[in-house]
């Protein structure tokens, strides 16, 4: 009887240590993400920005893994149960790749064949004054009324 009791106690200690470890990991990853976010605020280099964003995505996936595996206890389940959940989620790999590719391709097509769409992305709106939200809203609506170029470039 006392043997099972100490067994239970050892198991409890182990579980609490795991909770503590995962909490620290999640907090540290979040803090790193925030540091990277602050660092990115004034960043102008496109390549560096892309690299930082990639790092943030990796940290995000790591956090998701720790939450699902330890907080939701999936790692301690039977392998067959894990597979019935993880295998369908593999669809996301295709899902993300295909749809982001599609969005990108749609932008390229429109920039090539829709001169109005392309021109809209070059017209700068006057920079708003700090704190005057009403003025900003007015300007933003004003811009939308700019008519399409009178002589659109014809593509053959």
């Amino acid at each position: 009887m006392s043997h099972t009791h100490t067994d239970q106690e050892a198991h409890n200690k182990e579980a609490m240590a795991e909770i503590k470890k995962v909490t620290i990991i999640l907090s540290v990853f979040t803090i790193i993400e925030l540091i990277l976010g602050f660092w990115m605020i004034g960043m102008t280099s496109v390549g560096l920005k892309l690299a930082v964003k990639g790092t943030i995505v990796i940290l995000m996936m790591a956090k998701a893994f720790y939450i699902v595996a330890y907080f939701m206890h999936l790692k301690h389940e039977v392998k067959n149960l894990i597979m019935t959940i993880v295998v369908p989620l593999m669809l996301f790999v295709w899902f993300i790749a295909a749809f982001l590719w599609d969005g990108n391709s749609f932008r390229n097509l429109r920039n090539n064949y829709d001169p109005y769409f392309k021109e809209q992305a070059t017209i700068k709106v006057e920079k708003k004054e700090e704190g005057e939200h009403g003025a900003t809203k007015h300007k933003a609506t004003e811009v939308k009324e700019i008519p399409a170029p009178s002589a659109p470039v014809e593509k053959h």
Partner: protein
Amino acid sequence: MSTTTTASPNEAKLWGGGKSPFNSEYGKVMMWYFLMSDAFTFGAFLISYGTVRFSTNGWPNSNEVFRSFPFAPEGVHAPLVFVSIMTFILIISSVTMVLAVHAGKNMDKSGVVRNMIWTIIGGLAFLSCQAWEWNHLHSEGAWWGMNPFLNADGTASSTNFTNFFFTITGFHGFHVFSGVVINIIMLIMTLLNKFEQRGHYLMIEKAGLYWHFVDLVWVFVFTIFYLL
């Protein structure tokens, strides 16, 4: 037949009948499958956001949009600060939920009650933060169909940004709200000794799975809207 059973005795034990082959309770397995389907709903939302963003030339800078803080004087800008507090509130409430599940496994009623109360407080705190942020954005002129923010490069933006923001954070906020309601029901059932009578706290585990999922979704929503 007999050769296969002797070849892998473990598997035979698992699938030989008489016990759950997943070694898990029915309701818990179904909760996992519900959460998987919910993950696809959130995934569809977030991926459509990504598609639209990729198909547009300009996009508002999140550091210029989400830069306010409650009680901060006018003109003080603190990008990322408020949302990081919201993120930590949700992480901490997730930890207290794990502790509640852990206490439930030990049949420790007072531990379950204590940690459930903390989890509910965390959920309400998160919802309050979100309500403040929505209210603030609305006062700036942002809502479904209204976008006062310019693109990062100074060009005119479309309403896609605000539409996606309010739809996705709203859908997540609704999940947090229902999670808080579920947790309150679990707390009441614990106080009424329902689980003591049943002899197990499996319901707390299932509510815990839901609550962790809410935290999991916020990891993605937070990263995609505020950081990327």
